């Protein structure tokens, strides 16, 4: 049975015919990535190197304000008109931000893609940040965002603060409550002037004609000319960050130094390791026992120059100490019994991501801005991963740890105690 499955999967590997994305860099500095899966819905993304790591120390929370301003007035058009016309064409407009990247994404039926591109350029690259819109429209949405944060999101932001300490990569994607409304329109405009420029951005189109994309990239008046903005770099330092909250349970994240976006070999090893320690693996039951009223799952995050890999625990305060110690033990001594199975699972995950035009659009945007590897490159590298590569990765990753805890953290050990 296993042999036939293996031969079937080998056949599947051979017959896959994902068209490689077409990548160009225009004269004005804008990167353009086009991939045509012959789907009926186009995914358009205009993204810039303007994530939360590009904030200065006093600007923490600025990107959250900018993200919530998308869809409001732009320099030459009322926001309502743009959003309404995109909806009238069947489009959906979303803004997104990570620590590295800020962008606007539009999903639109294929025949309206060129009209949608013109809207996208205006919405993403020409925000007006009008002061009255800040008061009336944007600040309430930021309050709503903070109210909807889950506990896992809180520890996820905190683990970056713990891991990267004073580096800007440690800044949160969310604005803190007392920073809401602390930014004047001029400060937002200054940030946009510096970051929303052609040399700093990428235009991604999945299921769009590449000629249309390139023509828009060259001829549009929306994205001003400018040079790329460099970040200060960051490396994993490790540490702790804790928040107290009443209650019996505690949410914990434990992380080690993961693979940066540009390092394809480390990324491949990280994917294989994540497949091993992921949700459906034996790690779960071994650590927490059969009576698990707790949850554990793995996470990985890759940024420019550094990354994180680790596990998230949700457990009661009484079991926290043993759960953390056992998790760290299991992470540091991760012995992968069935390497081929983990590699297969990692490869499958990448295939599933490639199937979604939206997710592959986001991947293209990040890879274009930060010289990350293509999906096919990553797949080839995962095939080459061997036991020694994974062992090396594990040793480097979990040498120092970062731990963030939210809740009843009184028994959670500190990172230097483990």
């Amino acid at each position, binding site marked *: 049975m296993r042999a036939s499955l293996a031969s079937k999967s080998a056949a599947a590997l051979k017959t896959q015919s994902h068209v490689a994305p077409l990548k160009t860099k225009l004269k004005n500095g804008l990167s353009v990535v086009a991939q045509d899966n012959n789907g009926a819905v186009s995914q358009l993304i205009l993204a810039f190197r303007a994530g939360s790591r590009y904030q200065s120390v006093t600007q923490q929370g600025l990107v959250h304000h900018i993200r919530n301003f998308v869809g409001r007035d732009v320099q030459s058009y*009322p926001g*309502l*008109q743009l959003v*309404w016309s995109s909806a009238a064409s069947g489009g959906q407009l979303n803004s997104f931000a990570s620590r590295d990247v800020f962008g606007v994404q539009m999903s639109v039926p294929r025949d309206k893609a060129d009209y949608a591109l013109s809207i996208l350029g205006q919405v993403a690259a020409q925000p007006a940040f*009008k*002061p*009255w819109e800040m*008061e*009336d*429209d944007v600040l309430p949405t930021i309050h709503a965002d903070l109210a909807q944060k889950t506990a896992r999101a809180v520890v996820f932001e905190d683990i970056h603060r713990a891991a990267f300490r004073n580096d800007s990569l440690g800044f949160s994607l969310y604005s803190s409550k007392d920073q809401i409304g602390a930014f004047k*329109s001029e400060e937002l405009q200054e940030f946009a002037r510096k970051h929303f420029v052609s040399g700093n951005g990428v235009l991604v189109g999945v299921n769009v004609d590449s000629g249309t994309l390139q023509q828009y990239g060259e001829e549009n008046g929306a994205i001003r000319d400018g040079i790329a903005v460099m970040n200060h770099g960051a490396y994993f330092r490790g540490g702790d960050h804790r928040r107290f909250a009443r209650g019996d349970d505690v949410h914990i994240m434990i992380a080690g130094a993961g693979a940066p976006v540009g390092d394809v070999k480390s990324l491949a090893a990280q994917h294989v390791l994540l497949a091993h320690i992921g949700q459906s693996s034996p790690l779960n039951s071994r650590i927490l026992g059969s009576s698990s009223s707790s949850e554990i799952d793995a996470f990985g995050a890759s940024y420019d120059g550094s990354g994180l890999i680790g596990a998230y625990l949700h457990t009661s305060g009484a079991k926290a100490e043993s759960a953390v110690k056992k998790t760290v033990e299991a992470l540091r001594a991760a012995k992968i019994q069935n390497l081929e199975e983990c590699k297969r699972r990692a490869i499958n995950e990448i295939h599933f991501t490639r199937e979604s035009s939206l997710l592959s659009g986001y991947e293209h945007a990040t890879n274009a801005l930060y010289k990350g590897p293509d999906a096919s490159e990553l797949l080839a590298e995962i095939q080459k991963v061997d036991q020694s590569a994974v062992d090396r990765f594990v040793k480097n990753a979990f040498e120092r740890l970062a731990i963030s805890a939210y809740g009843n953290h009184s028994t959670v050990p500190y990172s230097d105690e483990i």
Partner: protein
Amino acid sequence: MASQAASKAIQFAYNGTIASTLRKFAWTNLWGGREYGLQFHDTYFEPAPEVTEALRRLNLKEPHVFDQRKIRLSRAHTLALHGEKLPKAEWTQWDQESWYLKPYLDEIEKEKKARAETSGLIPPYEMKQH
């Protein structure tokens, strides 16, 4: 030409020779704010929702202009209270006149039009309970 708007950025609906001459004539002779040192938009009907909103936006975006307006109005009210007027040399001159609310009023009108053409939703400033 002399009777065009002092600030080149301000464009009215009618900007030709006749219209601008009439405008200057009306501003000089038919409006009473000059002798109190006021500008025309100081005396615009404030309770109208469009003007209220334009003044709010002016305060947010150009607080210095809003403060100067407040000072002019305060001085004019004090004069009127005492039954006085400024000496003719200190009356507002044509080149000092700036229609500072015009851009905001234009934007509000455009928003109303966009709202009517799209969703018909009431704008936030009219939804506020005062």
